[in-house]
């Protein structure tokens, strides 16, 4: 018996099991207590409400949701909108952040000064202010529906959003999208092949040229042809606003702009820090080999800087996901707005709805950080 008592491994397992059991007991106690108290207070409990008709009119829907759908479908609308705004903002913020971060290190004083000013401005202002600033800025800058800015008489821009025509039959576009995906895969294959060849022989393949062809020209041509063969639902002014077409609401634009500019300020600093963490000798060695500054940056410095940048970048991406809930402040129908806002008050089932929302953020967040950890493992220094 005492043998086990003194065994470090057995002791460790014992404490871990005890901790888990304690945690499980605490959760069971809390759940039981809460449901008993709610029962006594006459509050409805359970998850049946998810199948009730939602009746909520959502202004920006990418799924097949209508107010006649159930609350589960409403939840899905919120999740989709959160994912879409996060994805767009993360991509845009990364691109903008890299540009600003590199500009910050530019020998050109004006450029680095401007980049520095932007970073300091952005990092010292609360995000809510940013969101409201963009929102009321966007609304104020755009005209009312009757004075819409017409883009070739098919798309219209006003303070109700950007109204674009949609194809009445989407099949041509689905084929075009498939072609674009194939082009994307082809580009990835070329990039991997080019890297292998460069590593083996040192010869550089113009990946950007094929990228331009595959990622810009192919989509333009594919969608162009799809657009020509499809018939269109062109928005027309009727009543208060345009009818028909798809509306990109100003809330989306404002939230996208706010998240992008705000996060880009932080990413820029991460990029600057990453590049500066690469010792000067690496630059000098690259120059000594005859690489031009661009090549030295892209081939020598950035690959090493990436290792430093990935972990803080992951935090920023997770921040974007969480900060997308600021959309609730300006009525962008993301997860918090439609589910915790509308559905919660309509059904009154606060605990269930908050728990579902937490679980969804957790799952998305873990997926993002899982992907970034995989990428981190892939790019980290291989020591022999």
């Amino acid at each position, binding site marked *: 018996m005492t043998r086990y008592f003194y065994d470090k491994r057995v002791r460790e397992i014992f404490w871990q099991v005890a901790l888990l059991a304690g945690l499980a007991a605490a959760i069971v106690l809390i759940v039981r207590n809460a449901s008993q108290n709610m029962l006594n*207070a006459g509050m409805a409990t359970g998850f049946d409400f998810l199948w009730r008709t939602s009746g909520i009119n959502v202004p920006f829907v990418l799924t097949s949701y209508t107010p006649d759908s159930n609350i589960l479908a409403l939840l899905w609308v919120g999740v989709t909108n959160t994912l879409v705004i996060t994805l767009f903002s993360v991509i845009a913020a990364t691109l903008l952040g890299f540009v600003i971060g590199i500009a910050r290190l530019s020998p050109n004083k004006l450029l680095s000064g401007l980049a520095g000013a932007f970073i300091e401005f952005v990092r010292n202002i609360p995000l809510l202010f940013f969101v409201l600033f963009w929102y009321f800025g966007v609304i104020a800058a755009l005209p009312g529906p009757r004075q819409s800015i017409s883009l070739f008489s098919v798309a219209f821009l006003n303070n109700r959003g950007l109204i674009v025509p949609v194809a009445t039959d989407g099949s041509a576009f689905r084929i075009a999208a498939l072609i674009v995906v194939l082009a994307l895969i082809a580009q990835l294959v070329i990039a991997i092949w080019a890297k292998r060849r460069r590593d083996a022989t040192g010869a550089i393949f113009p990946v950007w040229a094929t990228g331009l062809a595959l990622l810009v020209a192919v989509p333009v041509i594919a969608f162009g042809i799809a657009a020509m063969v499809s018939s269109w639902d062109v928005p027309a002014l009727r009543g208060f606003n345009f009818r028909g077409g798809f509306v990109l609401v100003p809330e989306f634009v404002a939230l996208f702009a706010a998240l992008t500019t705000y996060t880009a300020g932080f990413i820029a600093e991460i990029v600057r820090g990453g590049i500066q963490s690469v010792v000067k000798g690496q630059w000098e060695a690259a120059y000594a080999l005859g690489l031009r500054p661009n090549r030295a940056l892209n081939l020598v410095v950035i690959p090493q800087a990436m290792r430093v940048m990935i972990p803080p970048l992951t935090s920023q991406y997770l921040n974007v996901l969480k900060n997308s809930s600021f959309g609730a402040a300006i009525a962008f129908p993301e997860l918090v707005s439609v589910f915790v806002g509308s559905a919660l*008050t309509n059904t009154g089932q606060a605990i269930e709805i908050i728990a579902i929302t937490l679980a969804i953020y957790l799952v998305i967040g873990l997926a993002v950080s899982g992907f970034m950890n995989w990428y981190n493992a892939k790019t980290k220094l291989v020591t022999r």
Partner: protein
Amino acid sequence: MTHLARGALGAALLAFGAGAAGAQQLAPSPTLDAIRARGHVECGVHLGLPGFSFANDKGEWTGLDVDFCRAVAAAVLGDANKVRYTPTSVQQRWPVLQSGQVDLLSRNTTITFSRNVTLGVNFQGINFYEGQTFIVRTSSGAKKPADLENASICVAAGSTEERTAADFFRERNIKVTIINFQKNDDAIAAYDAGRCDSYTAGIGALAGQRIKLKTPGEHFIMTETISNDPQGPVTRWGDERWQAVVRWVLNGMIAAEYLGVTSKNVDDMRANSKSAEIRRLLGADGGFGAMLGLSNDWMFNAIKQVGNYGESYERTVGKGSPLGLERGQNQLWTRGGILFTSPFQ
């Protein structure tokens, strides 16, 4: 019978006699006990709706719903000023009430079936009746809700207005865009900034909100309503005696108007009125206050310090206020309205 047994019987009889002769036994009321212990009523009100619950530039809360909180404080504690207000948004109001943070909610809240049965709350009567309608810019030319085709409408997410508006346009196959904000104030600010063509709320609430717009004169409140919105004070389930206090303070304010008792004549009425119901209402007879566990001058205090329903209405939302609303349906049942009280008998 032993001496001991006789003594015990005697003691029991004595105790029973003392109980019968003394104060009547009351059901326990944790809420009333808590209010007395802390010395003020906790009242959940609107974040800021002129005429209903609005903090003026001196930080004093005024309005029809605030008056009701004050009347309850006067009835329970004898002082209408012993109220602490908790401003709540559309979404905060339920957890704040359910968790016991406030004793009652007096916050132009519509009485609905699902709120009553799934949130564990009871509505204690109607202190304001209205219908939902729309405010638009006069220049838009829209005169009735059906004119709002393709309009963008700002609402507070989770309000009855959100659902009512969505249902109304869906049933009529009229396409509109409904933009759901977290707070009424955010929604009205977006309407004012031009994001929406219309903002929707109860007709009384709109009269209050219009005052807050940049140029109130350029906005038109439609007269056609699309809903049935009875509103009143809310309590949580349990503690029946406290719920009865809230219910009967509201009834008492309406009864006072019906019986012609006002804050001006209430002293005279209590001393000299021959009407049996007035005497019971004001505590001159009947001991009604004691039956609730309050002092017998509970309604006397409420009417003296706050006024009857009509006085409160005229001062806060009626002709004596910037809102200038008619009594309309919020008139006594004897004068063509729907407000009524059960008798104080």
